[in-house]
């Protein structure tokens, strides 16, 4: 089945038409550069996204803290990942960059906290 993909590699935003050639390969039309083909190939075979969410903490003072995947993760793992994040808790104190999930389902993707709490003030 033919599919159209908008390339996000640069602001040009090429509309790339992807046609399966029948042997499991694809043909790409409309990309102005090679990066477009690479992007479209990944989008058609294994699209990935950076996931961000908030996770509950063990404190009432700051009930939720933001987290992100440290690299894009395959779309098929996003829902299981969100379910895991919503069922878990962060113990304070928390530091920006601290890993709370290592190598989620062997994807090589970690989840890290993106906000330090509490802050340490000099005065």
């Amino acid at each position: 089945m033919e599919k159209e993909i908008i390339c996000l590699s640069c602001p040009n935003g090429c509309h790339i038409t992807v046609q399966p050639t029948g042997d499991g390969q694809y043909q790409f039309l409309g990309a102005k550069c090679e990066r477009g083909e690479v992007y479209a190939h990944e989008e058609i075979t294994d699209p990935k996204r950076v996931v961000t969410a908030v996770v509950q903490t063990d404190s009432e003072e700051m009930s939720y803290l933001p987290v992100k995947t440290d690299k894009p993760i395959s779309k098929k793992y996003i829902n299981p990942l969100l379910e895991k994040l919503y069922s878990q808790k962060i113990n304070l104190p928390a530091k920006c960059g601290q890993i709370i999930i290592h190598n989620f389902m062997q994807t090589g993707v970690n989840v890290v906290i993106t906000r330090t709490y509490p802050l340490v003030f000099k005065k």
Partner: protein
Amino acid sequence: MQERNYDVLIIGAGAAGMASALEVARQGLKTAIVDREPFLGGILPQCIHNGFGVHLFKEELTGPEFAERFIQNLVQSDIDIYLNTTATNMAVHQPVKQVNLCSSQHGVFRINARAIVLAMGCRERNRGNLGIPGTRPAGIFTAGLAQRLINIDGYMPGKRVVIVGSGDIGLIMARRLTWTGAEVLAVVEILPYPSGITRNIVQCLNDFNIPLYLSHIVTRIEGKDRVEAVEITPLENGTPNYSKTFKVECDTLLFSVGLVPENELTQSAGIKINPETGGPLVDTRLMTSAEGVFACGNVLHVHDLVDWVSDEAQRCGNELINYLQGKTEKIEQGKVIAGANLKYVLPNRYRLGEKNRFSMRSLIVKDKATLVVRQGEKTIRQFTLRHVKPAEMFHVELKPDDLKDLVSNGELLPIEFSLS
């Protein structure tokens, strides 16, 4: 009333306030920063998605991470930080400015400062600004408020959601709501093209098959206690065609319909406002009509990217230092006019002998647009821009060499920017 004395007071501890405070304090000026929220960072801590910092840090950060880079420097500096503190009014047309403040910790108190940076940011336009007919039930939020409820407070604003406006905050919220278990039924945009960037259209709407209705408006809100449905009508030749109106049942309506600089404090102090930006009129030093009062970030004009806010705020901090050191107390400045197809050009003045950086917004959508800078009939400089649209601010720089022979009878002549 208790009084405290500083060289510089920064009002607002968001992206603009933090960057200008750090710049100013590096020069050893005694600095205070105040914010009405209990935390530093302004809007950034609730913008948990990524895509910040590409220009400034050359990497993709989330909002809290972008803020963290400034916050960690701020809490380790000698700057006095006042949180939960609101500036209520100020007297600024005098060498030592007085700002009245109110906080839970200090009660009502006053800060005296030689210079002030206005960095209060902006606020969202809401239902009242659009004047949509219908009832007034619960379940109507601005997109940013919904974002705060979910990302900071941990509340779900609703389950079945319609979003009005395709600005980036609205698109980001469509994904956020979907990932938190809500169903986003429609995004309704009055313009024939999306206001947000392509990446957000792809990753926040297309990824979840959320329909985007271009050239459509919400024409009625229904519901007694809670939103029950909205009516959506297509625009044809600029007028709603009610014969094609359709209804979407939902319990929540979010508005992502633009931002307005928050300048009540500025206006009540008698500082002049630019009607095109909604922010104060500023000269090349980013100084307002009140001497020693500067402005930067979204309080000055609404930015699309936080990177440019930080950049402008650092510039503002440097200008403030030069001013307090007497280097720019009296400088000659010429007028800058926004001509054809430009909503505004900022700052509203230029000066000779150095680099001048201007920010502006287009009124048209065009590929390969030409920006011309003229003095009268004479073209000073011409720029070719790959793509312009109202939703994307752009910047150009004029070099000292571009700004020559502009003096007549001892006065600097006005220059005009126009786009075609």
